[in-house]
């Protein structure tokens, strides 16, 4: 079939519009980043509590895991989509580094000095960093997919 440049341009315009809609769907959940941040903060706190053998550590790990599963299920149900991870690996690695970095540091501090109010600061910093990473992911995703 012959396609003239006008038809081709119309097709490209339709492609751009569809890609923008796709990005809008992926990034249409302002509640995702704070929920993700707060949930992620449970893990370094739980790891620190493991150092002092607090039973609260297991409770936090279970709650954090359940919240993460619920977050993903809710996101999928509300948006009906799941973004492609292609080209977004840096954000996944950054998230792992933040959670495990703060977790390991907190574990070492808790083992030497015990737990205290500083753990609240760890939770807040982790939550903020992870929420910012989530927002950064959305922005990078939108750039990558032309929105």
């Amino acid at each position, binding site marked *: 079939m012959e*396609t003239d440049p006008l038809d*081709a341009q119309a097709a490209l315009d339709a492609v751009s*519009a569809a890609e923008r*809609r*796709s*990005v809008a769907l992926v990034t249409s959940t302002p509640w995702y980043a704070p929920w993700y941040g707060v949930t992620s903060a449970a893990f370094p706190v739980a790891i620190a509590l493991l150092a002092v053998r607090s039973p609260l550590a297991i409770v936090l790990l279970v709650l954090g895991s359940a919240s993460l599963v619920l977050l993903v299920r809710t996101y*999928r149900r509300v948006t009906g989509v*799941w973004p*492609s991870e292609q080209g977004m690996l840096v954000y996944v690695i950054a998230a792992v580094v933040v959670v495990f970095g703060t977790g390991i540091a907190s574990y070492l501090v808790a083992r030497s000095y015990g737990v205290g109010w500083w753990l609240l600061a760890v939770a807040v910093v982790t939550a903020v960093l992870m929420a910012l990473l989530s927002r950064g992911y959305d922005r990078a*995703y939108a750039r990558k997919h032309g929105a």
Partner: protein
Amino acid sequence: MTAPAFDETIHNPVRLRACAMLAGLDHAAFPILRDELGVSDSVLSKHLATLEAAGYVKLTKATSDRRLRTSVALTRKGRDAYVAHVAALRLIVAGETTPSPG
């Protein structure tokens, strides 16, 4: 990098927009795709069947909350064909000719 290749299977307006939506996604729920494309269930099913027969999309059915839910994802082959087709469209707009696949 994928070489430009005009693809008749993808070029249909509904299928092209479906591929464009799916290109940035791991998968999309059937009702979302239907609503975004503004077509009926049967029309979307027909177009997805065409893309599936070409090996361009994969349909997955799963039961969730006692309801059968279908999700749609571009395959690697479909993603490559879509990228090649969009590249071919750009060449046509630029006034160059493009090869067809096969």
